């Protein structure tokens, strides 16, 4: 797929910030991921042409970073942290709860293409564990009830973004 004019404009706008063309590769892949929801082989080919990089270079970079999805994803990307601090606060139970609610296993996408569920490594929100991320937003201090509520909300509101969880602040302590 050819790159959109919007993406080209964005990348050309930051070109002068960096001494090399290749430095623009991560920002470009972010733009593609954001616009298309994933990074297809066609997109990688276009990215290479745009930055004068061989396809192999684009692929080796795109496949290194977990935020670039090389397969089509659900529109709502539910990522639950199960690393140590979240695990100590019951993240495995949350994951089981999400799997039940969505009827899929971690790593899968629902049949209607709406939700993808996955494990994510530490989100640096350990003080407000357990934490998860939906698309661009963090949800912290989660309970199973809240998780169910958030997923229900995301059924109709794909932008998510509203914090349903408890206040993330304990008196005198900051997350």
């Amino acid at each position: 797929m050819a790159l959109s004019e919007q993406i080209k404009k964005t990348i050309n706008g930051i070109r002068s910030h960096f001494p090399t063309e290749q430095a623009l590769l991560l920002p470009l892949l972010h733009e593609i991921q954001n616009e298309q929801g994933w990074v297809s082989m066609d997109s990688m080919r276009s990215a290479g042409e745009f930055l004068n990089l061989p396809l192999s270079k684009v692929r080796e970079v795109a496949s290194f970073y977990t935020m670039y999805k090389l397969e089509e994803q659900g529109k709502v990307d539910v990522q639950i942290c199960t690393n140590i601090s979240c695990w100590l606060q019951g993240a495995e139970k949350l994951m089981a709860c999400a799997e039940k609610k969505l009827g899929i296993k971690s790593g899968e996408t629902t049949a209607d293409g709406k939700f993808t569920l996955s494990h994510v490594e530490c989100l640096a929100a350990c003080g407000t564990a357990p934490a998860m991320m939906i698309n661009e937003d963090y949800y912290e201090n989660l309970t199973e009830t809240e998780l169910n509520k958030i997923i229900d909300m995301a059924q109709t509101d794909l932008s998510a973004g509203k914090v349903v969880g408890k206040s993330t602040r304990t008196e005198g302590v900051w997350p």
Partner: protein
Amino acid sequence: MMYNNEHFEPVITPNVDKPGCDTLDFYLKNEDGYKGLEKALKMKPAEVVDEVKKSNLRGRGGAGFPTGMKWSFMPANPVDKDGNPKPKYLVCNADEGEPGTFKDRLIFTKTPHRMIEGMIIAGHAIGSNKGFIYIRGEWFKETRLMQKAIDDAKKAGFLGKNILGSGFDYELIIYRGAGAYICGEETALLNSLEGKRGEPRLKPPFPAQVGAYGMPSCVNNVETFAAVPYILLKGWEKYAKMGTERSGGTRLLGVSGRVNKPGVYELPMNLSINDVIELAGGVKDGKKLKAVIPGGASAPMLRADECGVLTDYDSLAKAGTMAGSGGIIVIDETVSIVEAAYTLLKFYEHESCGQCSQCREGSHWLARMFKRILDGGGTQDDLDYIAKICGNMAGQTICAFADAVTGPALSSVKKFRHEFEELIRNGGIDKTRAHTHSHINEGAHV
């Protein structure tokens, strides 16, 4: 609250609970914002480096390297082979992702200008006119906040051309990572900043010679930069006095896991791990403490009886672990150490960049062996074999990632061997749990 330290005052977090604390207005009005920069710009670069050296500020990212010394490694007037001057770059490592660490996120959301000011001062000190802030990709909101803070600082004349009439120019560029833990390692970060795979580089050459885009570069952590304005404004002596002999200032400790009040605490370094847990409201549900990981996931575990150790770099190193990134993970008596260590090893297995075979294979083997023990297929020989694998990993690879993997693996086996043996004897964790429960039920007092 008793800190046992008459010199202590919060350096980074005095106002993070106040509304609007992230704005430029607030920073200027209530926190002497950009006054440290004003002072620094009247000093010679070498004087600024000297001030930071004497403050005993040490890198807050994990390695604890003296910051002033790192700055002094930057060449004064580097030239390329044709004799043309080379640019120098300053890089902020905001790829926070060490499990148990969440302090930099606090700085980003509550006091971003402190970090920006620190970076401009550092830029002046090392003679750089351009800084990159490498932010972990998952921080969408935090990135927007930081970009706004940069824009505001620029409008107010703290960034851009001829800052405060000093003739010094400086610009800050944000670069987003894309979800790779290894990019927190400084040379992997530099590769990533160049749009490449985040694979650590062989050293030498060190970043001060060949860093970002082949130019001399200096990489520091978010918290390190955030401490700099205070040092310039209040003087190195005040900062140094708050710390220990070899490490100045305060530290942001992120306390997480089984405590009542998890969160970021800014504390002097003469407190013990036990004191810190007490400040964080004590162990959750009145349970007994079993173990603590004192410096982010890579730091070897401490048993409960070892938690009287102080939280400064040297005391923790002496106790066989490390201060690392200040992430204190609290584990109580209800947690299986084998399971906790396996949780970490799964993470390392996923995040090894795969360049060095010892690390790529070793992290995979370790995770599989811990899983086997949990599932009931472990043998007594496995425990010796774990130590052998770790011996082939630590110090044998390009970067310190392999050493980090051995932190939880070795310390768990060494300090909680009986838990591993129990699982091996009983045939796994499920059977061990069932066994423990039936034991309790059979007890006469129940």
